[in-house]
């Protein structure tokens, strides 16, 4: 259940917003001032921060908001105005608030705001969902879907031991053998609404509703040797589709702003439509020696150049203009991912995950060894964060590739 941190000094208003949020299916955390809110943010990292313009004491709401955004740059912030003032609302938007709410509050006014904010939390910043509001389901359809879901849950529980083989290699990690041998890129991406339509559902945020569950992303893996990108179903990781690239296969991939971006084996960036063939619509030479990984932080695309030992930050324009280049403080950056508050890289030489300061990526905040990659049995290639766990892919000499869900969670590294 998405968590909303409500920071309102007045207890009655705070309770009013809490009740509203809970009625809409969100978990509500409460704080009456900045220090207590900061404590909650650091401990639990809610999905959305909702704070009132009337902020007790110093600093002001705007200053406090800015300082929070420096520490949690990808946390959506909604500001509650004391009165309806469009000019004031625009000022807060310019400071980085996602949106503002004016009194009186109701589910009609607050609901859309929270829905959009919860969807944005994470690595994909897309203010607009392409889909129109879907037609309401008939009662019969709802009953059928509910019945099917119950059966599915019962089936999963009873057939748990028959899931696609997962080898438990540590106390909570899990490993899957892939049907191909050289996985080099990993990303969570959209699923098609229905096979045959050729259209993808836009990526949506985590949702506890059946609709949200249906929209949850698939796992996409690039395999340079078979010149393909593979899409796996999130529920059981079964292979759903393979996209073959006859010329210049992809080595790494990332979803950003409604498109798929890849870097090819020969060092070219390509932008793909999210259609049935992943049609490439642009292609240009990537900077640097050997780009091994791509990651999207919600605003910028990042690449890790294992040859030059640098991380690059790219503007999301047609040429992926390089905004900055940062020397990698670890060994060999094989992949990069974001968890909403920090950058993480998969270091192939240290066989570890490195946590970087998002505002100063040259600084390593923490390191977590990955025992699965120690001893060089596997070469790590891709990294993704699914909101709860890190996933990586690895190559093994003479054997099939592997997909690993790691026991380590970002929370352990805070």
């Amino acid at each position, binding site marked *: 259940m998405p968590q909303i941190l409500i920071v309102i000094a007045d207890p009655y208003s705070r309770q009013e917003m809490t009740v509203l949020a809970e009625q809409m299916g969100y978990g509500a955390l409460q704080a009456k001032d900045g220090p207590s809110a900061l404590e909650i943010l650091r401990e639990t990292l809610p999905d959305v921060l909702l704070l009132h313009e009337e902020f007790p004491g110093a600093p002001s709401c705007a200053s406090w908001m800015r300082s929070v955004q420096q520490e949690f740059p990808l946390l959506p912030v909604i500001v509650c105005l004391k009165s309806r003032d469009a000019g004031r609302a*625009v000022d807060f*938007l310019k400071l980085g608030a996602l949106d503002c709410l004016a009194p009186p509050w109701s589910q009609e*006014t607050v609901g859309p705001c929270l829905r959009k904010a919860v969807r944005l939390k994470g690595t994909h910043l897309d203010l*607009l969902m392409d889909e129109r509001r879907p037609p309401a389901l008939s009662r019969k359809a709802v009953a059928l879907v509910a019945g099917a879901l119950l059966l599915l849950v019962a089936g999963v529980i009873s057939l748990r031991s028959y899931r696609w083989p997962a080898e438990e290699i540590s106390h909570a990690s899990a490993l899957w053998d892939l049907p191909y041998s050289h996985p080099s890129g990993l990303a969570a991406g959209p699923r098609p609404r229905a096979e045959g339509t050729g259209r993808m559902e836009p990526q949506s945020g985590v949702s506890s509703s059946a609709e949200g569950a249906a929209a949850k992303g698939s796992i996409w893996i690039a395999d340079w040797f078979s010149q393909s990108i593979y899409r796996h179903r999130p529920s059981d990781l079964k292979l759903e589709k393979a996209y073959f690239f006859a010329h210049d296969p992809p080595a790494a991939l990332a979803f950003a702003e409604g498109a798929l971006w890849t870097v090819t084996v020969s060092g070219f960036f390509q932008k793909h439509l999210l259609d049935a063939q992943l049609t490439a619509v642009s292609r240009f030479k990537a900077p640097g020696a050997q780009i091994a990984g791509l990651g999207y932080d919600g605003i910028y695309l990042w690449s890790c150049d294992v040859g030059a030992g640098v991380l690059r930050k790219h503007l999301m324009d047609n040429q992926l203009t390089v905004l900055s280049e940062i020397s990698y403080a670890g060994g060999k950056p094989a992949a990069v991912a974001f968890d909403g508050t920090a950058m993480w890289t998969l270091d192939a030489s240290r066989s570890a995950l490195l946590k970087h300061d998002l505002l100063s990526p040259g600084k390593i905040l923490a390191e977590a060894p990955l025992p699965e990659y120690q001893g060089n049995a596997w070469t790590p290639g891709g990294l993704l964060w699914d909101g709860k766990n890190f996933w990586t892919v690895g190559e093994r000499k003479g054997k099939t590739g592997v997909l690993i869900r790691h026991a380590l969670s970002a929370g352990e590294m805070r």
Partner: protein
Amino acid sequence: MRRRRSVRLNQYLPVLWTLGEGAQNGWGRLLDLSAVGARLLTRGVLTGEEIFLSFELETEKFNKLRCRVARAEQDRDGYWVYGLEIAEDAARARLKQRLMSILSRAGQAGIDG
């Protein structure tokens, strides 16, 4: 693939909108902006065909830019997305100049004929 007629800027610009002097106003974001039009994302419901936008593009301010509402649709979150056409020639020219300046610095170029 058909290319766009006008160069576009894709940024989520905060914008203040009003339906006229003393009329309803609100706020939102411009999802994209070109010299001829824009897409406005807002929770407010626009009741007229004409809307006036105020926003800043880098250091340049555009005040009460008169636009015509060409399209409206609601997204799944409950926000409204309005397709707007800029109704003032002088504003279009100014906007085009500013957008070209921004985009040429970012490495993008060219307006298709």
